[in-house]
């Protein structure tokens, strides 16, 4: 049972922190996987190491880097999976991370993974890596798709042309992995520098000039560094420390003496590389033309065409979110775990054990009291939130692996443009419906700072996470009117804030440009492993916070700080027209939105709310930032100032909107 083995290994694979160089160990030789998004780097990583990184049919799944140590034929290596990168000329933040890693470990083995059928488009990066004098192995992945398109690649000839090992693989089925391992262990670098590709005389001359400048960098990659400097602004190449004088010298080199304008290096160099790549592929690749439309193409068409695409989206939301996550996860599963398992077995057991172990009432309360770590912290996390988040991750894994998300991105691009985002932002947004913290991290894949800020704000404000959604739906499902008001208010706020943000934030409107991978049938084992990996991530992230929250509430209750806060909040809460006890749920809400929602759930069960009050409370709660973890992630991703500002903005907005809703209810005498 390979799946089980992999599940055990999940913990040994960790997502790395922001400053990657710090956490890579120094002892092992490295194997670095690079390549364009969606070519199977992560799948190959899994096959090489028997551990698990999220693999899905969506470009840009690996944010941050994943690494693990593995033994290949007796030698130990540290294998590193990097975010997708199209070229050494980096555009997005994640591409910059990948480039930095590649240049920091220039002496280790670099595996360039490409999609075999698209080799012509991907070879330029191979050429760049060879140009930088790295120890490159080219892996032609997805070999099984070649037959479908009737393409043949002469692998031996390709290897000879490039003068590096070329290994064909099907990573998901582990075909070719042993050959790759052998290639890694027997890798011998050619002794002298070899230049595979010479540019025009003019560019070669400029390369010489740049190399002569005093620059502290690995001798072996100088040619490649010189090319990068010619193509891009020095500020964009952040891993090379340069001085101002150096920059101005570079700029002089880049400028034409005769007419004072810059040379079109970027374009010319790329063109030369592409020509070389085309030349190589024309000698090694043969193809019989076969063009037939399949059912997959038809389905593709249906998903993108708005007339059929929007109904499909509604069906996906209805089945995935409402039936599976809402009814099954938040309904049956929560009911079973909370009302049967916890109420009848676990809670009585905790209470019994703790009271018999600890004689002091006050310490007992820490564990099993009203806000006890076990009776409240663990119960909320395991009985209420886990079933909901778990089912969401399951549904999301299916949607992700099928390749539906890029189609959704296309469908929704025009709408998202109005709120300062492009279709690309659909991924963090949909993921945000599952876990906003994870989604905030994923905003990294958006191309501009402006988009990243917009997405972070909207995620914090108007995208409720699955845990919260689940609890809210259970509450509101009995009152269709309230559900409609809630939906209307939240969507309006989402669009309004987005629209205003797009108007107010400086910078250019976003552009939409992404590769659309083919639709693929998800594999069951991958979905299970992926769901499991995300649940593990979630529990690690969340359970400690729940327990911490219980602890703080317990301390707060003892020293009276808690009552003070409740008292302080009671005034704004009265403005919202809510019972005073809601303050408690709102304070929970500061820790985790869903925690607060679960608090509302308890209050509602006790019959403390009218339907109007319930609606207002839920609207305000939805607009809160999801949890402390999301707050921390915002600070980490967007910086202290921006993170805190977004946090405060959300809380203010939550109260203002709650207040206005209440006012509207009173003015128009609405009773839901």
């Amino acid at each position, binding site marked *: 049972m390979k799946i089980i083995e992999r599940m055990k290994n999940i913990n040994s694979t960790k997502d790395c922190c922001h400053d990657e160089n710090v956490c890579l160990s120094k002892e092992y030789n490295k194997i670095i996987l690079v390549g364009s998004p969606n070519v199977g780097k992560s799948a190959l990583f899994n096959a090489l190491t028997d551990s698990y990184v999220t693999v899905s049919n969506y470009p840009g799944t690996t944010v941050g880097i994943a690494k693990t140590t593995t033994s290949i034929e007796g030698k130990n290596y540290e294998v590193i999976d990097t975010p997708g990168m199209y070229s050494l000329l980096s555009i997005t933040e994640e591409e910059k991370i990948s480039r930095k890693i590649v240049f920091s470990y220039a002496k280790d083995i670099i595996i360039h993974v490409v999609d075999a059928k698209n080799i012509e488009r991907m070879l330029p990066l191979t050429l760049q890596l060879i140009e930088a004098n790295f120890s490159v192995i080219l892996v032609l992945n997805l070999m099984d798709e070649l037959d479908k398109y009737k393409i043949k690649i002469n692998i031996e000839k390709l290897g000879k042309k490039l003068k590096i090992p070329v290994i064909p693989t099907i990573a998901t089925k582990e075909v070719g992995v042993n050959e790759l391992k052998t290639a890694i262990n027997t890798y011998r670098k050619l002794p002298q520098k070899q230049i595979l590709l010479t540019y025009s005389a003019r560019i070669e001359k400029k390369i010489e000039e740049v190399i002569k400048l005093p620059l502290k960098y690995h001798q072996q990659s100088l040619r490649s560094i010189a090319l990068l400097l010619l193509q891009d602004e020095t500020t964009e190449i952040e891993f090379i420390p340069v001085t101002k004088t150096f920059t101005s010298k570079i700029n002089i080199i880049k400028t034409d003496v005769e*007419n004072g304008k810059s040379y079109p290096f970027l374009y010319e160099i*790329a063109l030369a590389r*592409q020509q070389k790549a085309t030349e190589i592929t024309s000698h090694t690749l043969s193809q019989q033309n076969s063009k037939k439309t399949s059912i997959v193409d038809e389905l593709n068409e249906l998903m993108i*065409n708005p007339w059929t695409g929007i109904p499909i989206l509604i069906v996906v939301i209805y089945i995935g979110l409402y039936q599976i996550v809402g009814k099954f996860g938040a309904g049956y599963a929560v009911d079973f775990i909370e009302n049967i398992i916890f109420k009848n077995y676990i809670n009585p057991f905790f209470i019994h054990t703790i009271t018999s172990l600890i004689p002091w009432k006050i310490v007992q309360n820490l564990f099993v009291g009203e806000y006890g770590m076990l009776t409240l912290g663990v119960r909320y996390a395991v009985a209420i939130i886990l079933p909901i988040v778990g089912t969401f991750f399951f549904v999301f894994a299916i949607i992700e692996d099928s390749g539906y998300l890029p189609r959704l991105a296309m469908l929704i691009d025009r709408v998202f443009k109005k709120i300062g985002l492009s279709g690309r932002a659909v991924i963090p947004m949909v993921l945000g419906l599952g876990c906003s913290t994870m989604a905030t991290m994923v905003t990294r894949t958006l191309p501009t700072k402006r988009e990243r800020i917009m997405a972070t704000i909207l995620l914090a404000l108007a995208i409720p996470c699955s845990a919260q959604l689940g609890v809210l739906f259970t509450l509101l499902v009995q009152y269709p009117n309230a559900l409609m008001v809630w939906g209307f208010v939240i969507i309006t706020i989402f669009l309004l804030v987005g629209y205003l943000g797009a108007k107010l934030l400086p910078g250019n409107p976003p552009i*939409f440009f992404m590769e*659309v991978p083919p639709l693929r049938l998800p594999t069951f084992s991958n979905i299970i492993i992926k769901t499991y990996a995300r649940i593990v991530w979630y529990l690690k992230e969340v359970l400690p916070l729940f327990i911490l929250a219980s602890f703080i509430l317990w301390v707060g209750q003892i020293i009276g700080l808690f009552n003070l806060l409740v008292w302080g909040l009671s005034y704004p809460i009265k403005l919202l027209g809510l019972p005073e006890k809601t303050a408690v749920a709102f304070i929970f809400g500061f820790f985790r939105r869903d925690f607060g929602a679960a608090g509302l759930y308890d209050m509602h069960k006790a019959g403390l709310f009218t339907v109007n009050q319930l609606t207002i409370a839920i609207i305000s709660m939805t607009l809160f930032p999801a949890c402390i973890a999301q707050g921390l992630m915002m600070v980490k991703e967007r910086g202290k100032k921006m993170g805190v500002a977004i946090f405060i903005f959300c809380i203010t907005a939550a109260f203002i909107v709650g207040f206005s809703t209440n006012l509207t209810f009173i003015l128009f005498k609405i009773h839901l």
Partner: protein
Amino acid sequence: MKCKLCGYQFDIKQAVQSCASCPLTKNCPLVRCPNCNYEWPLDSEESNKLVPLTSLKKGEKGKISTICTSQTEYLKKIISMGIMPGMTIEMIRRFPTLLCQIGFSQFALDDEIAKYILVSRIN
């Protein structure tokens, strides 16, 4: 020569100067009026056939001739994704966003970036 929009008379050398910030002056089939910045193709057989990618109809194919923009960001984006002159590009869909195929890959892109990709139609 005379600008087709504002009628300003200028020398071709001045036109080149007004393109100074553009890295593509060498391959670019367009001239830009130094007075009003209007751009139009130079009168030659080949450049007359060039159209922006946005004007390809669904199902039409084109050969990419040049990527014509002075914005390095866009240029970087397009070429780093491997969309280069000489390649054949097919328009698969036009709405809600453009969907094009090159080789075996499909790309979704909006008009804002597609208008810089100049192609010649293939029948």
